[in-house]
């Protein structure tokens, strides 16, 4: 079970007549995000974030909680306006925020025991269990597991595992509409529908995928999970960008840069399936082993005969085409590049670029 910090702002738990609460809560979330980017808004007025990483960074759990409290109090102008809790698993963390306590690791079941069964958020259980004399989570947890499953079904069994401190998460603890609404308020999503970029609307599969990718980012880091978007440009590396999943530009609703502008020097399809993030230096020589250069007029000084990549062994060139000149103004430096398609005798094809007399491999057509 992941150890979580939960924040609960009692004044912001429901929306009043003037509708100020979501915006105020958004400011709270921003203040919390300054500590850690993995803030999840579970419902209006309540958000959670992982405890372990930030605690290490901010001088331990107690110190981290204190700093969070100060930051949120500053936003809301009231020290009493936020409850901060730390516990194992989402369910216990949310309750810990309500009672403003830190639950030591492994003491979840003991912490949960005195709470009334109503906190599970299951109206049927909240009615039935007290009639059977089961009023608290502790009493509920003491019931034999197979009886709970047989008498009340699978969802109650899940609640039972949570009450025993064996699991931390329950269906219904989160209100996804709140997260979407806050992102819209924040200008991260357009106001129409959150998924306007998907033709035919958003499907269950889109939601499932989004959840999976977010989970993967939590484990590997936000930069590790990317999406590709097309943009204008001549070279294969300039015609597309890789953006972290979830970043504003990667949102399908953000308008794509129109592709199809007449870029002189752009190579016709098919494009290379491998585009090196870091081009690798190469040598291109002619029949007499002299370096091949791109002349000022954009021609090759001689026919390329052999190439070597990264100082490796020379390979024979079977066919080649180019150079395709490309002149880009990039900041104030004028870059002059030329590209060369090369098919090696081994069958592989490469895209080479020459700039100021140096060749590099930009891409490969595997």
């Amino acid at each position, binding site marked *: 079970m992941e150890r979580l910090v939960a924040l609960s702002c009692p004044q912001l738990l429901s929306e009043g007549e003037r509708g100020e609460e979501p915006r105020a809560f958004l400011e709270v979330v921003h203040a919390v995000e300054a500590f850690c980017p993995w803030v999840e808004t579970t419902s209006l007025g309540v958000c959670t974030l992982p405890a372990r990483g930030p605690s290490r960074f901010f001088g331990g759990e107690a110190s981290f909680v204190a700093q969070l409290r100060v930051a949120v109090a500053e936003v809301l102008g009231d020290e009493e306006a936020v409850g901060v809790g730390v516990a194992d698993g989402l369910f216990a963390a949310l309750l810990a925020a309500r009672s403003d306590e830190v639950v030591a690791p492994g003491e979840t079941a003991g912490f949960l025991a005195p709470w009334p069964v109503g906190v599970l958020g299951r109206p049927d259980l909240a009615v039935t269990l007290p009639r059977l004399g089961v009023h608290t989570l502790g009493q509920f947890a003491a019931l034999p597991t197979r009886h709970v499953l047989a008498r009340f079904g699978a969802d109650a069994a899940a609640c039972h595992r949570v009450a025993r401190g064996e699991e931390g998460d329950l269906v219904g603890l989160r209100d996804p509409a709140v997260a979407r609404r806050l992102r819209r308020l924040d200008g991260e999503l357009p106001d129409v529908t959150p998924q306007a970029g998907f033709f035919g609307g958003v499907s269950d599969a889109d939601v499932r*995928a989004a959840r999976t990718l977010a989970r993967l980012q939590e484990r590997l880091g936000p930069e*590790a999970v990317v999406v*590709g978007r097309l943009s204008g440009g001549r070279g294969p590396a300039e015609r597309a960008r890789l953006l972290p999943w979830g970043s504003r530009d990667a949102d399908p609703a953000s308008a794509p840069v129109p592709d199809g502008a007449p870029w002189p020097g752009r190579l016709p399809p098919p494009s290379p399936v491998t585009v090196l993030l870091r081009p690798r230096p190469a040598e291109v020589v002619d029949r007499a082993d002299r370096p091949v250069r791109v002349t000022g007029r954009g021609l090759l000084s001689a026919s390329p005969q052999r190439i070597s990549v990264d100082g490796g062994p020379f390979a024979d060139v079977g066919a080649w085409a180019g150079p395709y000149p490309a002149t880009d103004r990039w900041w104030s430096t004028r870059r002059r590049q030329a590209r060369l398609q090369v098919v090696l005798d081994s069958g592989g094809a490469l895209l080479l670029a020459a700039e100021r007399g140096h060749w590099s491999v930009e891409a490969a057509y595997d």
Partner: protein
Amino acid sequence: MVTGAPGAGATTLALTLLVGASRSGSWCGLVGLADPGVVAMAELGLDLLRLALVPAPGGAWAEAAATLLDGVDVVLVRAPGRVGLTAGRLLSARAKERKSALVVLGARAADWPEAPDLTVTVTGSTWVGIGTGHGHLRGRRAELSVTGRRSAGRETRHTVWLPAAAGAAAPLDAGHAGRSA
């Protein structure tokens, strides 16, 4: 599983296997394609809006693939060399359990510890459209060998455009690249 000598077109072939699912609205995930050619992927027919990439998962490649199998329909993994029995079994089992498809891209069939349902190998390929100093890469004619388990056990051989001139893969008779060759 998709295999082939480096440069022969195995990456294009593996991506091509995702196109049908992608076109019908399925999500696809790519793990371990360190230097992805996004333009080529779009040309092949992949929907970039439903394509997620984990280019450099490092040691967590199996974990990344397993997580993706939870939430997307087709996952393409480039195996980092020989794959251990545990990781291979975990991923195969996860794919079956989630009813997702797993495409493994490897240098040799032996890199994957279990017998895949289907193995497609690029046994040879030739680029057309390019000469010595003229033309440009227009298409690649690739020879494929397909073997499998059970009913797909007998080896079959095919020749396809991988890709054809428009950037997508095509059966040999539908391509145009050959005309200028």
